[in-house]
């Protein structure tokens, strides 16, 4: 038998002793069962726990959308701000009290549509904010409209004959805006999210995590779990995160390689 009672009990006991879930809220997350955000939520929680950050010294700033709800499910300080203004608000919080570890959380609508104007400036200022961009290429909370990262031809109630605009590539934008730490991850692998976040938090400047995830309720064709699992693959072994030009080439050639894309090491802030 693969898991005897003993093996399962020890596994559960280890988790219980580790207190890795102390950071969760009491109430169950209100995301749809099967949503990719659970994986990201898991990765973020494990990162905070593994780094041993004092919960009262962590602030999560989130925008409007399903992603924005994650701060209600994590026992840290939270600021659920208005749609699209996650990064400016996070900048305010971090600048006010650099002691705090600040996570900015938002979806692809919040970050690339209404909030698109703020990303270049936070990157340019290199504010030490860790920005998790949940990219499921759809507006979930308003029930299924296409988002800036939806592919051409995506059909929805708001685009019955398929979208016509070319999608934005958040990773490419981040590199272009000069972000000093860019990672691309996949919601189905919480451990790699946790590892990348740990590196990001320890990185002295702005770090952005472009995380592919799936909306099980409204996206039945494009970023389904099945497709993502097929498309996503780790960066090749020989990838050198400190080489910006290589990072650009890699991101331009392949949209679905995941890992630490670029990390500038020569900054001291």
């Amino acid at each position, binding site marked *: *038998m*693969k898991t005897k009672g003993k093996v399962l009990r020890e596994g*559960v006991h280890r*988790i219980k002793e580790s207190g890795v*879930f102390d950071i969760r809220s009491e*109430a*169950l997350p209100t995301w749809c069962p*099967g949503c990719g955000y*659970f994986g990201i939520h898991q990765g973020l929680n494990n990162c905070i726990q593994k780094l041993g950050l004092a919960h009262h010294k962590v602030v999560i700033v989130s925008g409007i959308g399903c992603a924005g709800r994650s701060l209600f499910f994590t026992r840290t300080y939270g600021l659920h701000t208005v749609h699209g203004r996650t990064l400016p608000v996070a900048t305010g919080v971090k600048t006010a009290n650099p002691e705090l570890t600040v996570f900015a959380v938002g979806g692809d609508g919040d970050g690339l549509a209404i909030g698109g104007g703020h990303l270049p400036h936070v990157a340019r200022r290199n504010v030490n904010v860790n920005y998790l961009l949940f990219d499921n290429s759809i507006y979930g909370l308003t029930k299924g409209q296409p988002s800036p990262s939806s592919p051409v031809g995506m059909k929805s109630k708001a685009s019955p004959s398929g979208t016509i605009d070319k999608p934005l590539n958040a990773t490419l934008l981040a590199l272009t805006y000069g972000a000093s730490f860019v990672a691309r991850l996949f919601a189905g692998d919480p451990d790699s999210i946790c590892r990348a976040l740990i590196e990001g938090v320890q990185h002295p400047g702005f770090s952005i995590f472009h995380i592919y995830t799936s909306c*099980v309720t409204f996206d039945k064709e494009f970023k389904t779990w099945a497709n993502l699992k097929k498309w996503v693959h780790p960066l090749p072994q020989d990838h050198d995160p400190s080489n910006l030009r290589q990072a650009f080439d890699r991101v331009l050639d392949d949209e679905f390689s995941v890992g630490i894309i670029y990390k500038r090491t020569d900054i001291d802030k």
Partner: protein
Amino acid sequence: MKNKDRYPPDNSISSKKTTNNVVYSTDPADFFYVGVNIPCQNACPAYTNVPEYIRCLYERSYDRSYQLNRIVNLLPGVLGRICSRPCENKCRHGEPELGKPVGICHIKRSAADGKDPDQSYTEYLFPPQGKTVCVVGAGPAGLAAAHDLSSIGFAVTIMEALDEPGGMLRYGIPEFRLPREILKSEISSALRIGVTLKTGIKVGTDVSVQNLLDDYDAVLIATGCYVPRPLAIPGEDLAGIHSGIKFVMQVASGSPPRLGRSVVVIGAGFTAFDCARLALRLEAEESAICIRATEQDLRVTKDEILEAKREGVKVKALLLPQRIIGNEKVEGVEFVRTRPGEVLPNGRRRVVPIEGSEFVLPCDSVIVAIGQGSEPIASPGEKDERGVLIGDRITYRSSVPNLYVTGDFMTGPTTVIECIAGGRRVAEKIAEDLTGKKFREWAVRTEEATTTDRERSWDFIPRREMPTITPIENRFNSIETEVELGFESEEGIKESQRCYLCYLHYEIDITSCIYCRYCIDVAPRDCIKMVNEVITNEAGAITGLVETSNWREVNAVVIDNSRCIRCGECIKVCPVDCISVSKVELVERTLQGRRN
């Protein structure tokens, strides 16, 4: 041998290793798991692999289904008709909100009816051990022991007192429940591997046990129970009183006694019901079964009670016989009313007679079928107060070396399936004692599997009822006509579709689970739980799950396999494919005579 139905590839006898990493384990935790999770197999005294043989029938490989039964139960065709079906009481499909249990026994019969009649079976035959064994009694226990000993390589001789083998099956069960030709063909298939059968020899009188001990390396007493237990009440010696087993044997041998118009049967087992139904097939017009406790306490199957009542048998409860009335011929039975007491550990109900509630129930004849005892046989070895040889329940040994006992002779009247199981176990013990080698062992076999083609709507197929002879009157035309007609082949398939296949084990790998609760959302019942802790017994088997709805305390999402109906919905939706299916069966493995 059609290779499509080659003897089950991974069956116990041939112990060849197979692909997709099969693991055998004898860890007590795994035995505990299959005991809880495959309730039907666990309830069967012979541990028949129920889900597998039902699956084979669904796949229309009747032969393989029949053979899977035959490994642990020599007479599938017989048991498919007269088994007491302990498995169906425990079937998961019979849980309160899930409907009626699967017709496991009827499916066993469909396998026997549907198989290729001239199918030949190949048991795994060991090389001769150079030893001889004498089995006394050709009842179900004796036959099973003889067959297994012979297949392990012993030269076996059966000594049967009556003139035909089968014991209770041949003489104790009327033909309308068990046709003779089914019994004959299955007994011959058991004996064909070299067992010599000598009938008409009464051990203890025609030949002594001591002689047998001298001539054979081991002697097994499996003579069952034919000595009717007396009521031990005044008037029991009047004419018109018959013992149940004798009555059935007389009818079986074609010379039934005169019963008169109204018959009272005293007893609560299958024999009592057979006698009451037989009485109505003879010349009796009224036939009543009087039991001490209540109808709920009867150990016969629900179908048996319903069929008996439909044929006109009355069941009168809470009655304790005091005296039988009549000058030289019985005219009535004096009963006293009883009050039900508590249920004893062995499941029997204690009753308390109510003083002053005596009354007489007039009748023309009385059949006493309150069970039988084993007949004392002159033999060396320690005996109980009734002079019957005592056998150890684990090793089956008597106090005399090489003298063994098994079946109803040792345990007193039980069920046919328990006797067959007893016969197989004693054969194992004899083989180990005589050769010092271990030939077989039970193991839990785990194999990676995928969800089957079962559809969720199959869980709502109503239970198929066994067609019987109607209108009722036609059942009395002749005493041999079998009442149950057996499933049409399509009905058998439909019934087999109802089985959840509980040997499938669903499990979440908690290291890669992202706690997204999609599986819980699609689960048809409370079978997947958010768990704070897992409780195991000292053997390490899961005995409890501490549930929680507080998100901070949800340490794992666990499939509670004792609630899971194997519908496979969770696997379809798991985003990170962390739910695995494996086939976890209790099987018997041959050991090529490993030294133990």
